[in-house]
């Protein structure tokens, strides 16, 4: 699946998103949904390869916000594009001081990338059929930002 990191196509991504079935059989660096990660906390400790977490709007992320930098990557899932909770989740992570990659997964495409980037996302997994070279151009379509956000906390009158 095409992946953009920092507005560029990323060629060699080492991360694999796993689910309940593929968790034990997947080697290398894995992204594990929060609930699954919590249920398998012990076994994941001895694993070779890095572990990242995936969250969505239904998860309680209070504990994660205490210490987000234990991960170098946190994925936020958009089950459908209308579910806008992920935008706020990204902002909460940034506010908690998270410095790693915030990756958008799920229903991610073109016309939401700028909003996502402004909220703190810097990586986007986009499905094949929704990806085109034009996807790279969207970041500069609308340059005006009235309000502060994760990218720049200053509103327009402070810049």
């Amino acid at each position, binding site marked *: 699946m095409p992946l953009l990191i920092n507005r560029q196509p990323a060629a060699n991504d080492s991360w694999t998103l796993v689910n309940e079935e593929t968790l034990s059989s997947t080697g290398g660096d894995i992204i594990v949904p929060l609930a699954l990660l919590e249920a398998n906390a012990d076994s994941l400790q001895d694993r070779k390869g890095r572990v990242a977490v995936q969250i969505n709007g239904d998860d309680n992320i209070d504990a994660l916000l205490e210490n987000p930098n234990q991960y170098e990557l946190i994925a936020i899932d958009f089950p459908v594009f209308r579910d806008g909770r992920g935008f706020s989740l990204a902002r909460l992570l940034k506010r908690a001081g998270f410095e790693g990659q915030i990756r958008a997964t799920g229903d991610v495409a073109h016309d939401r990338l700028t909003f996502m980037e*402004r909220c703190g996302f810097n990586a986007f997994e986009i499905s094949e059929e929704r990806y085109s070279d034009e996807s790279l151009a969207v970041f500069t379509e609308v340059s005006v930002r009235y309000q502060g956000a994760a990218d720049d906390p200053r509103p327009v009158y402070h810049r």
Partner: protein
Amino acid sequence: MYQYNEVDQKLVDERVEQYRDQTRRYLAGELPEDEFLALRLMNGLYVQRHAPMLRVAIPYGLMNSAQLRKLAHVARKYDRGYGHFTTRTNLQLNWPKLEEVPDILAELAEVQLHAIQTSGNCIRNTTTDHLAGVNVDEIEDPRPYCEIIRQWSTLHPEFAFLPRKFKIAVTGGPQDRAASQVHDIGLHIVRNEAGDVGFEVLVGGGLGRTPVIGKQIREFLPKEDLLSFLEAIIRVYNLNGRRDNKYKARIKILVQAMGIDKFRELVEAEWAEIRDSELKLPETEISRVQNFFKPFEYDSNAADDAVDTLLAENNDFRVWYERNTVAHKVSGYRVVVVSLKPYLKPAGDMTSEQMEAVADLAESYSFGEIRGTHNQNLVLADVKKSDLLAVWQVLADNNLARPNIGTLADMTVCPGGDFCALANAKTLSVADRINEKFEDLDYLYDLGDIKLNFSGCINACAHHHVGNIGLLGVDKKGEDWYQITLGGRDDEQAALGKVLGKAVSAEEVPNVLEKVLNVYVEHRNEGESFIDTFQRIGLATFKENVNATAH
């Protein structure tokens, strides 16, 4: 009024080009239908019963002559020569072509207009008092805060996919002419004991399927904290509002389910995190925006008695003056309400010619500005009394001077089944029936102020729950029926109407209304309004009498 700077202009221009590209990709089959739907909604484009409908934002109802002329032009060139003013003070075009919408938006951008966030699950056009800045009892002009909210909410990256649409209203003093208590957030400018000006904040009001009066979440919010507090509320809502059922997704449901105290706790906790951030509004920014709304240079020699003789001589003019003009805080001036409720024409509709006539009038007599009201009329807010006759004559020539403001004939009516795909029943033809039945203006004047609000379905676009008389279209086995409620009001004493009885047919509506009005006339005390009488004698008296005389 606010004037765009380069940044504001750039935003709307870039947005037009972005939408042009989105439309192109959609028409080329590169953008899936449901995704384009979300994008076109965020640009104000719906698909209606017959054609797309484009909703143009009139921020807090304020426009200038050039903008109204442009709307007239757009309606003529791209539509059928008329537009429809809504209760959110926006203008709807009912017949634009999908492929021409980018061109329409480009034309609108030339005069600092756009259609951004007039639909979709985002923060919508903020509304306010149509008498802002010119009424006597105002603490402060609310419009600068509306503009500050407009800028903050426009393309807000976090709040473009809320659980449901989100509406904010701001009032400037103790009187509420913006229905603020039935908004997702209502902001009231108040003065605290220390004499500071700030906001009382209400949350969780709304109409639709579950009508609710907003609850106070904060008694006094300092001005500089306006944006951080709004952001805290909406973040809590975005994270916690229901997304499994669109009928339960508005913030009112969340506040109800959680209870206002728990909700307040969450908001306060979030607010504590962001209160002392860049969201704090500096005094310089508030005064920069306020400078755009400074009072006009009124003529200090304008005579207050300029029309007294005329009023005595010309009965038609006097009647119009009494019904369709309102006191102005400056001596020698008057506020003119342009009635968009002519006899047997859809409420809120306006032809291009009418728009141009009003634009000209504003330019000649009212500092070039026009306002929309949440009752679908327009306002020329600053007319010298000595100019009133001239204004009245032009309005009358253009069928915009029916002296019916505030009366039963000043109905607020949504487009209903003739246009709206969601409607359960037609509204326009039934509104005509009511108008025909109560055509006699003297009778209407005798009845005094009565608000009638008429929605074609439970979405309540015409605010029927808060009409003194509310009409709601319901579908009974494919036929149009109408439920009547009494006792609603949308002012500072907001209340929800109570159901009078079983729904009635279109033919029966005027007769039942007549019975209701008879009960009022019979029971009222000297000078008592319909709503006051209702509150004194209660629904039961109306029920008894209306049902006793049925058949």
